[in-house]
C-alpha cells in the first residue's frame, strides 16, 4: 500500500528537472476506438453485433463467431484479479523510473481477460472496478481498483499517472472575469489545489466577483490579457514555471448572424480572445509545461479549455461565436499533440449555452456555471479529454454522430 499523498516538498534547486518520458504508445487504428471511450471516461469494449460477445484485445473479427460486426459498446466495468505482478526493474524507461510498477491479469465479468495497471491494494482473487484510462502517452489502458474498501484514489501513484488530479497542483485560471471563476476556485480549493492564479484582463475595469476572489486564501489575482502578446509573455516570465494546470476560461460571446451590420469587429474580437488568445497562451506557457511534465509528484499535468458545443454544431444565431469556437477546437487538437510530448493532457470542456448574460434570451435548459466547474474538476481527477456539459451539449454531440445534416438544418431554423 502507498501512504497519503501529502504536499510534495519544494524543488531542490540543485537537482536537474527530470525530463518527461512517455510509456509505449504503439496502437492499431482500431485500438483507438478504446481511446475515444477513455477520452470521455466511458468503460467500453468491442462488442459483436452477431453474438453479443465482448472482445479484447481489439480485433477485426469476433473471436467467438468470426463476425466482422464489432462495434464499441459500453461494457460492465467489473472483474476479478487473476494474478498480480510488480515489475521491479522494467525494461522501459518510463516504467523503470516509476518502479515498482504493478500490473496484473484481470478477468472481466463480461468475458475478456486483460492485462491491467493495478491499484496498490489489489491482490489476487479480489473483485475489482475497471477503468479505461488515458496514460501519459494519450493511449487507452485498463486500470483496476478494489471494489471493496475505502480508498482515496489520488493516493495511488499509478492512478495519479493516469489523471491530472488538482491536489497540490498550482492552477492558472486565465480570465477571472468569466462568471465560472467563483465556482471553479471553490471546487479547486475543495480538491486540494495549491496556489490558484487568476488572470484579470484590463485590470483597470472593475468586476463583480473581484472582492470575493480576493478573500480566498491562496488565490492571486494577476494582470493577464490573452489578447496581448506582451501581457501573456510578462505573466509567463513570473509564473510560467509555477503552473501545473491551465484552465483557459477566456471567452467572448456575442450573438448575431453574419449578415448583421458591424459583425466583423466583434468576430475579430472573439478570434483575438478565443483563438489567438489560446495560441498566445500556448506559445508562452506550453513549452515550460511540456518541460515540467515529470517535475515531481505534482508536475505539469493538464490544460483545460472551456469551449462551447457551438464548436461542433454551429448555430447561425451565434455565427461568429460558432466559427471562433470551431477554430479553437481545431487549434486545441494541435495543442494537445504538442503538450503530449510532456505527458500533459489537454481537456476540452464543451458546454451548451450557459447562464451567462450573453445567452440571456435563450430557452432553458442552460448550463449553470457551477456545473461547468464540477465538470472541470471531475475531468482533471479522472484524466478525461472530451467532456460535454449539460443536456444541450450532450444531445447535439450524440446527434452529430448519427445525423449531422439534421442538426445543421434544425439549428439553421433558429437563425436570428
Amino acid at each position, binding site marked *: 500500500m502507498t501512504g497519503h499523498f501529502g504536499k510534495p516538498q519544494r524543488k531542490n534547486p540543485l537537482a536537474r528537472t527530470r525530463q518527461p518520458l512517455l510509456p509505449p504508445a504503439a496502437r492499431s487504428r482500431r485500438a483507438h476506438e478504446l481511446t475515444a471511450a477513455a477520452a470521455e471516461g466511458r468503460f467500453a469494449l468491442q462488442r459483436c453485433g452477431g453474438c453479443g460477445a465482448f472482445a479484447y484485445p481489439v480485433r477485426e473479427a469476433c473471436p467467438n463467431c468470426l463476425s466482422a460486426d464489432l462495434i464499441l459498446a459500453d461494457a460492465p466495468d467489473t472483474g476479478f484479479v487473476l494474478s498480480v505482478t510488480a515489475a521491479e526493474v522494467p525494461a522501459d524507461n518510463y516504467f523503470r523510473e516509476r518502479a515498482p510498477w504493478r500490473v496484473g491479469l484481470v478477468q472481466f465479468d463480461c468475458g475478456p481477460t486483460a492485462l491491467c495497471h493495478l491499484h496498490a491494494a489489489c491482490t489476487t482473487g479480489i473483485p475489482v472496478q475497471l477503468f479505461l484510462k488515458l496514460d501519459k502517452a494519450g493511449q487507452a489502458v485498463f486500470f483496476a481498483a478494489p471494489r471493496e474498501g475505502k480508498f482515496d484514489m489520488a493516493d495511488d501513484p499509478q492512478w495519479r499517472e493516469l489523471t491530472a488530479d488538482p491536489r497540490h497542483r498550482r492552477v492558472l485560471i486565465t480570465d477571472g472575469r468569466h462568471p465560472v471563476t467563483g465556482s471553479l476556485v471553490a471546487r479547486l480549493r475543495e480538491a486540494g489545489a495549491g496556489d490558484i492564479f487568476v488572470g484579470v484582463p*484590463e*485590470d*483597470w*475595469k*472593475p468586476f463583480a466577483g473581484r472582492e470575493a476572489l480576493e478573500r480566498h486564501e491562496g488565490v492571486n489575482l494577476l*494582470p493577464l*490579457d490573452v*489578447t*496581448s*502578446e*506582451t*501581457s501573456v509573455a510578462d505573466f509567463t516570465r513570473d509564473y510560467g514555471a509555477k503552473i501545473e494546470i491551465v484552465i483557459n476560461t477566456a471567452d467572448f460571446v*456575442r450573438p448575431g448572424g453574419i449578415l448583421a451590420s*458591424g459583425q466583423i*469587429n*466583434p468576430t475579430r*474580437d472573439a478570434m483575438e480572445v478565443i483563438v489567438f488568445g489560446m495560441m498566445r497562451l500556448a506559445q508562452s506557457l506550453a513549452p515550460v509545461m511540456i518541460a515540467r511534465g515529470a517535475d515531481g509528484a505534482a508536475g505539469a499535468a493538464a490544460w483545460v479549455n472551456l469551449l462551447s458545443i457551438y464548436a461542433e454544431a454551429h448555430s447561425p444565431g451565434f455565427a461568429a461565436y460558432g466559427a471562433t469556437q470551431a477554430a479553437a477546437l481545431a487549434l486545441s487538437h494541435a495543442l494537445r499533440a504538442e503538450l503530449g510530448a510532456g505527458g500533459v493532457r489537454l481537456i476540452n470542456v464543451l458546454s451548451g449555452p450557459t447562464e451567462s448574460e450573453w445567452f440571456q434570451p435563450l430557452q432553458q435548459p442552460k448550463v449553470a456555471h457551477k456545473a461547468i466547474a464540477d465538470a472541470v474538476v471531475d475531468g482533471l481527477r479522472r484524466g478525461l479529454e472530451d467532456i460535454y456539459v449539460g443536456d444541450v451539449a450532450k444531445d447535439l454531440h450524440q446527434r452529430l454522430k448519427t445525423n449531422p445534416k439534421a442538426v445543421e438544418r434544425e439549428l439553421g431554423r433558429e437563425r436570428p
Partner: protein
Amino acid sequence: MTSPVLCALQEALVGGAVEIVDLTQTLSPDFPTIVLPPELGQSAPVRIERISHYDGSGPAWYWNNLSFGEHTGTHFDAPVHWYTGRDLPLNSVDCLPTRHMIAPACVIDCSRSAAADADFLLTKAEVLSWEAAHGRIPAGSWVLMRSDWSKRSGAAYANLAADGAHTPGPDAEVMEWLVAERDIIGFGTETIGTDAGQGGHFHPPYPAHHFLHGAGRYGLQCLTNLDRLPPTGTMIIAAPLKILHGSGSPLRVLALVPRG
C-alpha cells in the same frame, strides 16, 4: 531667405529659452480606453505584436505590427467624430488644415477641485475667473483643462463604478460658451474623453463632443504634463496621423513653453 522669427525660435530652442514639453502618454496595451456598453461597437485596444527581434523571423532587425482604435492613448478628435460635425468641410484628420496643427494654449488649473471631487465640472464662472487673472482667451486657442488626472493610473485613472466613469470635465454651458464666445480651436483634457465621465447624462449628452465638433473644433484627451505648462504663452503642436476619413488618431502632442 531667412526668417527672423524662425531664427529666433531656433535660438530659443537651442538656448533653452523655449522648452519642448511632451504632453503625450506612452501608447501601450495597458492604457485605459473608453468604455461603452458591451453590445455596442468597441474600440480596439492598443496591441503591439512582434514581427521579429533579431531572431529567426528577421535576423538583423526588430519591428512590430501595431493595431489600435482611432481613439486610444493620447489622441485627437476630429469634427467628423461626432454627428454634429458630420457635414462640415475638412472634418476628418486627413484634411485637417496644417495651420490648425500649431496653436496657442490656455491652461486652466482645476487640479485641486478634481482631487476633491472626481466629478468636478469646469463652469463658465470658473473660466471667467481664470480670465480675470490671465486675460481673455484669444480666439484660435486650445483650452487645456489641467486636472492632474494623468498622475493616476489603471483603475484609479478610469475610475469606473457601477454607474459609469467618474472623471472631471466641462459642463455643457461652458463648452457652448467657449466655442461660441471665445472661438477656441479645441479643448483638451487629461482624462479618457474631453467630456466628464458622467457626461452622457448632461444636456446635451457629451456636450464637449457636441459643441466642439458641431462647430468644426477639435478635442485632445489623455494629455499629460499639463502641470508643466504656464496658464498662457504656450504653443501646442498637435498633428494627428493622416488617416483616410479618420475620425481621430493617437498622436504626439508637444508644447513649446517659454522658460526664464
